[in-house]
């Protein structure tokens, strides 16, 4: 770590779900340290535990073994310093864009003035000033995801956790949002942990790509992406990184025995 203590220290974390068909080892003995300001992508096939790991960092699940530490405090539950951006947005449908973004600052008891200032600032940052009073159902998927991002930023988050945030969007919107996210990350020095199953997306965005393997879910390798930014998806260097990572992913996708596939699908 360049500056001392890592922002996140994941040590020997396992998560087992008990089901009627037996125990499912969603994640086994995962260890990872992440420095402040790093952009880390978790990548792997379905059932490799990447979403489970993200939810453990978010505090939405408790590990069966091991622990997640932020700075030097054990994570015991969700909190504003670890802002989650869900794939299905999870916006409050009864609140306007402004209401959704102001939810966190209000919940934490900031003064009216501070709440308004934070909301307006982040509405502008994600370019939704004209839609500040619109309700989520009136927005496109890309706009909803912008609101979800603004919502955690307005809450002074230190780490943004993103669970396949652009998975449900069309290709053009996805590219726009990827660019905006990178710009935002470079400007704010935030730490980003981003789950995806798209290799190209991972290489485009991340400082480090953590490859995970299913059955049982575990961390297979931690790959630093040495490409300079801004990255060009069409460049030969990008391609060679992609080929290398594809190799890692294919090799273990093949290894999943057919009899455990129904089990993998049963994972939450």
């Amino acid at each position, binding site marked *: 770590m360049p500056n001392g203590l890592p922002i996140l220290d994941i040590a020997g974390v396992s998560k087992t779900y008990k089901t009627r068909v037996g125990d499912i080892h969603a994640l086994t003995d995962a260890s990872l340290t992440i420095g402040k300001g790093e952009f880390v992508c978790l990548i792997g096939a379905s059932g490799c535990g990447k979403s489970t790991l993200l939810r453990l960092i978010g505090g939405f699940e408790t590990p069966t073994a091991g622990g997640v530490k932020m700075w030097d405090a054990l994570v015991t539950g969700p*909190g504003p310093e*670890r*802002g989650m951006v869900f794939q*299905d947005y999870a916006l409050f449908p009864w609140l306007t864009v402004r209401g959704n973004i102001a*939810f966190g600052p209000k919940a934490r008891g900031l003064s009216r003035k501070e709440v308004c200032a934070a909301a307006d600032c982040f509405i502008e940052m994600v370019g939704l000033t004209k839609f500040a009073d619109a309700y989520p159902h009136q927005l496109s998927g890309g706009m909803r995801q912008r609101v979800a991002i603004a919502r955690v930023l307005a809450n002074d988050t230190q780490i943004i956790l993103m669970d396949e945030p652009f998975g449900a969007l069309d290709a053009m919107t996805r590219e726009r949002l990827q660019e905006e996210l990178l710009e935002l990350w470079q400007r704010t020095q935030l730490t980003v942990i981003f789950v995806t199953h798209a290799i190209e997306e991972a290489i485009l965005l991340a400082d480090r790509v953590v490859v995970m393997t299913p059955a049982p879910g575990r961390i297979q390798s931690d790959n630093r992406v040495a490409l300079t930014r801004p990255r060009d998806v069409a460049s030969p260097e990008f391609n060679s990184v992609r080929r290398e990572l594809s190799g890692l992913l294919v090799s273990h996708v093949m290894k999943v025995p057919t009899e455990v596939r129904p089990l993998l699908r049963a994972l939450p």
Partner: protein
Amino acid sequence: MLSALGRWTWPVVVPIAGLVLWWIGTNDRPASLVPPPVEVGRALWDLAAGGLYDDAFSATLITHLLASVSRVYGGFLLAALVGVPLGLMIGRIGVVRSMFEPTLQILRPVTAWLPLAMILFGIGPRSAFFLVFLGAFYPVLVNTIFGVRSVDPRLFEAASMLGASSSAIFPKVVLPAALPSIFTGLRLGLGFAWVVIVVGEMTGVQTGLGAIIMEARQLSRTEIVIAGMAVIGIAGFISDQFVQWLGRRLLRWSPQHA
């Protein structure tokens, strides 16, 4: 998209066709059990304003209508006052759910309550009020429970991730998320109240739309029976339109109501 003309024309096509068929089937047939629409119209006019027949029914509509409306809204408001909080608690608190839900489900078939209501409250307006209350209570209760139970669990996660304390979850997440469903329950409950009021007023009540219908039946004044039915239909319709308008205003955020 319907044009403005179409929006107002199409809904009246079926009622007008019905009236025409009714008129063809009954006009100039003295032996018909059903009077022609013109006679029902005259009865309705006399019921409302008087001046045509000058009998016991003349110009009494407003009294009966007010009596029914006050019972409908009284019973309905009481049902909402009990049903919504109870539904919220049953939906949210496990102990309350195990305590009340089985009993309430067993007591649900409401029609069987009529004889007991007559014993308890006597034959009269209080039985009618009680029946209206029961009729409105269950739709309100069941929909409130459903609304509370079907909140997207992601929203709980989102709220706690944003720093909402567990005591803030109920007013800030559960209540607003359940509101459309609660509203549906209130709308259904008010509809049921209008159905039940007529039955409730048919036994030993002096005033109310159900009461004049029964009285007119005993005197073989079929035109007044039908006129009374028409008033109930229209009153129920207006009351439902009002609730829907209220819903559109309060639930602008909900794609089902906006």
